[in-house]
């Protein structure tokens, strides 16, 4: 397919095991991915799940144990890192300490033999693009973390790569700067139109910036989708748990009703929208409920009942922990608007949990 900037086919990387190593780490296990040209694509997953390794395989710093990397349709197995049409923004920036900022940015063009005048002009342009027009003569050590991050970005972008690989580029920044850089990066990506493959373990960051997200765990891709898809329709329990907060409740399939499905739990029942896959009556499933999608009503409302166990005020919302008859705990969040939220229910109150059928997510065990 021609629209794919990067394609990973059965990509696998196992570390160690070469010369009688005791440890054998399967960092990446059979990853298949297609990344569209011009897309902001994020690899999201917990620490150690193989994000960096995947990125390094694309960049050519690691050789796959099995499988293949294709960039713009070309197989990369015989192409060394320095000839691949990709550039990387390293997690620690990896700026050359012995060169000035301008020399750092000029590094790529210079290696490719660009004439001096043209090069100087491009360097200035690149530094302006990342809004650092005046620091060219400084050494990287004389810049703040956020500025270094931008220089690293300029150093990569100046080469106009087909794909830009970014390994937790905002990881070292404080929260405020991080939020600002997220917006800037996103704008920049739309401006230059380069494919971004972005690595992060911060789910909020992934949701806010990406066109599509691949959720990884333990070297495997669990789900690929838009932020809305992975948040609203998580494919597995892990995805639901990793992205946002989720209540998991064991339940049984009761009966179909139109395009809805009744599920019974200890302490009541809930109506869910009919899931895509066919489920047997009486089958054990797990329900995934987002705290912010659960509403609370006084106990006479029917449905799923419980008792308020804990009330925590967290500014915008109030967080309620409700104990069901089964002993399971469910977290619900109500926004503090008018009479709602704060003070509406107290510890020990009997309540009913309400949840729209579309927000009751059924996971097949």
């Amino acid at each position, binding site marked *: 397919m021609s629209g794919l900037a990067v394609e990973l086919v059965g990509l696998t990387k196992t570390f160690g095991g070469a010369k009688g190593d005791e440890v054998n780490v399967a960092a990446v296990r059979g990853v298949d991915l297609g990344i569209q040209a011009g897309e902001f694509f994020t690899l999201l997953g917990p620490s150690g799940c193989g994000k960096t390794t995947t990125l390094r395989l694309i*960049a*050519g*710093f690691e050789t796959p144990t099995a499988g293949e990397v294709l960039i713009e349709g070309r197989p990369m197995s015989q192409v*060394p*890192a*320095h*000839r691949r049409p*990709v*550039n*990387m923004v*390293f997690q*620690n920036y*990896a*700026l*050359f*300490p*012995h060169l000035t900022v301008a020399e750092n940015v000029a*590094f*790529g063009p210079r*290696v*490719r033999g660009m004439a001096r005048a043209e090069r100087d002009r491009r360097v200035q342009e690149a530094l302006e693009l990342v809004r650092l027009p005046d620091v060219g003569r400084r050494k990287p050590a004389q810049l703040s973390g956020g500025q270094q991050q931008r220089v690293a970005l300029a*150093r*990569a972008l100046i*080469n106009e790569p087909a794909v830009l690989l970014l390994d937790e580029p905002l990881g070292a920044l404080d929260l405020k700067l991080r939020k600002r850089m997220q917006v800037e990066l996103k704008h920049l990506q739309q401006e230059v139109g380069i494919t971004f493959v972005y690595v992060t373990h911060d789910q909020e960051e992934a949701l806010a910036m990406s066109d599509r997200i691949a959720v990884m765990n333990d070297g495997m891709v669990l789900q690929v989708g838009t932020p809305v898809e992975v948040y609203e329709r998580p494919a597995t329990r892990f995805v639901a748990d990793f992205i946002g907060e989720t209540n998991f409740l064991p339940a049984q399939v009761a009966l179909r009703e139109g395009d809805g499905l009744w599920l019974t739990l200890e302490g009541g029942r809930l109506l869910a929208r009919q899931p895509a896959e066919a489920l047997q009556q009486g089958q054990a499933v797990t329900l995934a409920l987002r705290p912010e999608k659960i509403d609370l009503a006084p106990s006479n409302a029917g449905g799923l009942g419980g008792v308020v166990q804990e009330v925590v005020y967290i500014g915008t919302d109030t967080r309620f922990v409700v104990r069901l008859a089964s002993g399971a705990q469910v977290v619900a969040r109500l926004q503090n608007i008018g009479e709602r939220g704060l003070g509406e229910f107290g510890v020990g109150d009997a309540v009913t949990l309400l949840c729209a059928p579309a927000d009751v997510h059924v996971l097949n065990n």
Partner: protein
Amino acid sequence: MNTRGRLWVLIGPPAIVLLAFFVLPMINMGSFSLRQGSFGAARQLWTIEHYRAFAANEAFQRLLLRSTWLALATSLLTVILAYPVAYHLAFKAGGRRMTLMMLLLVPAWTSFLLRILAWKLILGSEGLFSVALQALGLMQEPRPILLYTPTAVVVALVYSWLPFVALPIFAALQRIDVRLLEAAADLGCPPWRAFVRVTLPLSVPGVAAGFFFVFIPTLGEWVTPALVGGADGVMYGNIIQDQFARALNWPMGSLMSLVMLAAMLGLLGLLVGLARLLRLDLEVV
């Protein structure tokens, strides 16, 4: 204690040591070079006669020049030979690093004199080269190979300095973040170019340390030339020693030492300036 007081506590002891063992002897030598003789009344007489004599003595100057060349050659050769050793230790040795490091260092724990004397045997008429050449039929009778030449001095010195130069270069190379080399590859550098543009410049402090570590003592060296240098291998250090120990001309000896110091400082300044100039822009790589 206030900051200033603490500062004095810190720099006080080294300052006293420096004053006692460096500054005062230097002043002493400076003043000695202006006396007529080493002992008695002559020692009380001030004169610049030795300066005139040195300026007129071409043999001394030639020897200083030759010793400088010899020291430069020794330091350069040592650095060139030590660099790959250090590079291998830092980047390629992996699990064998400790073993290799020991192999490099342990010979250096034996006495300096022994190591130089060993070369006397190796280069001698019963030595490795002589025997090998005879066995190959390239030489008819036992003869020393290179022994008692300036080359023998350089060979023996390079051999004994090598581990001490490999170490600072190794330390500098080891500090280089491998991600910098990956970044260079990422930006289009094939390995040799990444070496020239990243590894080499970042290892300059280690190279410079190693270079001066050899150059400075070698310029004043007199033991090695005395043992393996022969008549042609005499170095400036040998004639300084002669002035003090044999001719008992302490003023001349002092003066010659001062001239050597000046030559050394001048050369170092030149080299540092040259290095700065070179680092400015290497447009070719």
